[in-house]
Structure formats: C-alpha cells, structure tokens
C-alpha cells in the first residue's frame, strides 16, 4: 500500500495494464473540462487586463482631461525612464528588496534550524511563527509605526519615520518580521530533506557544528534556499502596503508599486500609470528569469514536478 501511495499518478498511468484509446481520449476530455474554469478565470482577470494595460500605456489617457486622449506611442515609457522619480522608486524598491530578503534568509535559516532541532515546545514555536504570517500586512505596518512614533511608541522622542534612514529601517524591519516565517517554513521543508546520515557521518569524521552547517546542510538544501529566495524576492519587489501605511512614500521611500498606484488611482492617469505597471511587470519577469537561468534553479524539479 505504501509503495502505491507514493508513486506519481503519471507513472502509474503510463505503466498501467491495458489502456484503450477511447479511455485515453475520455481522460483527456475530462482533464480539459476540469482545468478549463480555473484557466479561463485566471486568463480573464490577468492576461486580458495586462494586455489592456499594454494598450493603455501607449496612449495619453488621463481621466481628468479625457478630451486630450491620444495615441502617443512609447512617449509614456520615455517620460518615465527619463524621470528622476522613477529611478528613485526603482532604487528604493531594490534597496528594500535586497536588504530585507538578505536579513530574512539569515534569520529564516536560524529559525528553521531551531524549529528543526527544538525538542521542547516544537508545537509552540511553529504556532508562534505562523502569527506574523497570519497578520494583515497593513496591521503589521501600523503596529511597527505605532511602536516607533514618539506619540504612541516606546522608543522615546526620536522619530525614525521622520527621516530617510529611519523610514527605510522601519519598513525593512516590518517586512522582515512579517515574511520571515514564510521563508523559514520553506527552509525548514528543505532542511527536512537533508539526509540525517550525512550529518552523522560528518560528526563521526569530527566536523564541528559550524562546519556541518556550511559543508553538509546548506549545500544539500541549495534548491530550497533558491526557491525561498526567488519567492520572497519577487514578493518583496512588489511591496506596497507597508510603505503606504508607514511613510506614504515620503523620504525617498516611494516604491514602484506605490508610484504606479499614485498615477493610476490617485491621479487617474491611466496611460502613464499603465506604463509604470508594465515596466514593473517586466522587471519581475527579468528577476525570475535571472534566478532560473543564473542559479540554474529548476522550478519544475523543486516544485515537485517530475
């Protein structure tokens, strides 16, 4: 029973005894029918709007001056890419992403090791770590804002949210707090796949705990680390909620998503805003591409697909 339970469905299928063409055809049809609703909804609400956004980005399309709407080609993109505000947002987004993901990797790994090794309070610690994950990002952002602001906080009269460094630090700390649990759970799952015999063998050979971590544990969970980094980097790059609540983009902390939101919703300039959002979209694709090619992360393999 155990063997058949773990065998992938596809292998059992192809290796199955007698398979008639009719049956294969019926299976194909059922498969398509079952998958169709999900595929159609995802296409309708994602692919269609993104195409529409590409179209809008080629127009001067400002809802406040609808009479001036006109096809402008790539003018919106030129305007954005030559503007200091855009590059400031790119810098802010990159700084927040790189620093917070780097810190998350270190803390997340430490947490994963504790969760992996802890004997007492195993349940407590796993429950505790899920609390930041479950808390609404906006609420977490408020919690940290209230904690550091002089009129509601506990760190005294300094106001980190009144300057650039402090604003970035607060935003990054909030992001780290909120998303490290997710990172550490992914790493924990990777940790569980490292064979215990390897650890024992290294121990017998006299390796210290530190050496075992660097020479045995980490190399063996490389794919889990890369997947965790990729997921978090892509997620961090679209950061919006925390910045909106804590600084509203002041002190050079406006991110690309925030810039897009301001153009699209606050100033209803759909042409310019769409161009910003398409550029963000392309950057996300580029990051994913770099990860997959640069680190040879085979998402198919690590995501459990054959």
């Amino acid at each position: 029973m155990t063997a058949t339970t773990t065998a992938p469905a596809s292998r059992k299928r192809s290796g199955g005894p007698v398979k008639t063409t009719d049956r294969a055809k019926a299976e194909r049809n059922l498969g398509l029918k079952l998958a169709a609703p999900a595929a159609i909804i995802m296409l309708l609400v994602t692919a269609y709007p993104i195409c529409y956004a590409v179209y809008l980005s080629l127009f001067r399309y400002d809802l406040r001056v609808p009479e001036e709407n006109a096809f402008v080609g790539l003018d919106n993109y030129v305007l954005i890419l030559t503007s200091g505000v855009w590059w400031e947002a790119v810098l802010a987004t990159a700084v927040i992403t790189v620093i917070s993901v780097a810190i998350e990797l270190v803390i997340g790994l430490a947490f994963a090791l504790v969760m992996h090794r802890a004997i007492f309070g195993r349940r407590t610690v796993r429950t505790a770590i899920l609390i930041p994950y479950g808390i609404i990002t906006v609420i977490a952002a408020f919690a940290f804002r209230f904690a550091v602001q002089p009129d509601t906080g506990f760190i005294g009269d300094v106001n980190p949210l009144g300057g650039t460094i402090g604003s970035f630090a607060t935003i990054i700390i909030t992001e780290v707090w909120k998303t490290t649990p997710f990172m550490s759970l992914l790493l924990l799952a990777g940790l569980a796949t490292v064979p215990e015999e390897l650890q024992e063998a290294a121990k017998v050979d006299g390796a210290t705990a530190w050496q075992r971590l660097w020479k045995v544990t980490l190399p063996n969970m490389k794919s889990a680390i890369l997947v965790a980094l990729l997921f978090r980097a892509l997620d961090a790059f679209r950061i919006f909620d925390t910045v909106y609540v804590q600084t509203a983009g002041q002190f050079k902390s406006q991110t690309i998503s925030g810039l897009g939101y301001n153009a699209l919703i606050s100033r209803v300039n759909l042409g310019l805003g769409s161009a910003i959002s398409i550029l963000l979209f392309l950057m996300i694709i580029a990051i994913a591409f770099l990860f997959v090619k640069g680190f040879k992360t085979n998402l198919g393999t690590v995501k459990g697909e054959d």
Partner: protein
Amino acid sequence: MTASTIGAERIGATTAPAKAGTTKGAAKQPGSGAIWKIGTAVIVAYALFPVLWILSLSLKPAADVGDGKLIPTNPSLGNYRDIFTSGEFVRPLINSIGISLITTAIAVVIAAFAAYAIARLDFPGKALLLSGALAIAMFPPVSIIGPLFNIWRATGLYDTWPGLILPYMTFALPLAIWTLAAFFREIPWDLEQAAQVDGATPYQAFRKVILPLALPGVFTSAIIVFIFCWNDFLFAISLTSTEAARTVPAATAFFTASSNFINPTGQIAAAAIVVTVPIIIMVLVFQRRIVAGLTAGAVKG
C-alpha cells in the same frame, strides 16, 4: 492506513522523520538542548512582541496612548466599544468576512477540479497550466489595477463585492491549485481504480472516493486562500470607494486619514486585534495543516 490519516501522513513526510532523527541526535550531545530552548523563546518573543504592543495600545484610553508602557495603567475596553458603535469598522468587517469567504469557497472548488486533473489525468496544457498559475502567483497586482479600475467603472463592478472577488480569484486560484495538486498526488489512487472497476464513472470516482480523501488538503488550501484575501490591501483601496465594499485593511488605512484631530491610534489598535484574533485562533488550531500547506510542493518530499 486509513483515509483520515492521509493528510497527516504527507505532513509527516516533511516533518516527522526529522523529529525522530534529531531527537536522538540532540540527546547524544549534552548541553546543546539549552541553545534550542533559548532559540524557541526568541522565536516566540519575536512573533508575539508587535502583537502585544498593539494589544496594549488597544486597551489604553486616548490619554494613555503616549505613555510608552507595555502594560496599560488604566486598561479599558473603550476603544473596542467605539469601533463597534461607530459603524466605520463594522461594515468593512462584514465586507471582509463576506468577500473572503465567498472567494475562498469559489476558488477552492474550481481549483479542486483543476488540481485533480493535474494530479490525476493526462491532458494537453497541463504543464502550461501549472507554470501559468505559478507565474500569476508572482504577478504584481499593481499591473492590473489600472485596467480593472477602468473596466469596473464601465461595467458597474467598481465598489462592489464581485469587483473584489474577481481579482482575488486570480491570485487565490494559483495558491489553491498548487497546494491542492501537491495534496492530491499523495492520495491512494488504487481506491479510485477500484471504484471504477466496480462501475463508477471517472466523475463518480472523483466525487465519491477521492473528494472525501482530499478534504484535509482542501481545507488547508481554504485557510491559505482565506488569509490571502483577508490580507489584501492594494485591490481593496483601488477598486472601492465607499463602505459598500471597502474591506478592513482599506478602512483601517483611511481611519487615520479621515480623523486628523482625534488620535485614532487606540481604535486602529482595537480594530487590528479584532481582525487578528480569529487568524491567531485558526493558526493555533490548524498549525500543522498550515505549515504543510505553505510548503506543499515547495520541496520534493
């Protein structure tokens, strides 16, 4: 192995062996236990501190909000009374619960069909569907709020429940499909074949044999999808303008903006606690399932 242990079995695949192995290993090394105990304490403190600060603020009357103390000197439930009587919070709370529950129900049902097909059937476009879903999960929401804003205004979906449920579906579906497909792969398919030998159609085999076995996985993905909808902010502030559909995260953000003269900190904190407590209870009760669901399929195990 009985049907009900299957969910637990697959969770065990990633966590239980480690436990068995390390308990032994750690016991061999005297003194190493203390490090892990301290580590545990650090993690618990890390997770709880901001929540305790918010809880403390929510219990402080407006005059005490600035005292910087973790334990309120004059604890009162005044902030909670205020948010539940003002209506500024009650309606968004109803919207949040309604929209999240409806999205979760629809997304999980549709995703269950797709995940079943992915885990079980050979059909063209399977790999495309999976990678497409993964791509959408990584998609920046800001890329589609502009077009949705425009289309929703034209079609009357702006500032309505369906206007939020639809975009939530796109992001909820990939989450649910990945989680469910990972769970579905662990189901003993022999049972389904047995049902088909007994004369059940593939659909009957799905509904009567596999679905009951798959319910733990379905439930897990429902929790994860619900937390996603509950958390969304960008769609909520972009596609709503009034109380008709504004959800709690959006309402909380505008809470501050609209009342500059009274310090709304205590009330925001109270609202934060009200929307956080159900999640904490859910996490406490379903901890194992959520951990399994979040990492489902992330690492081959």
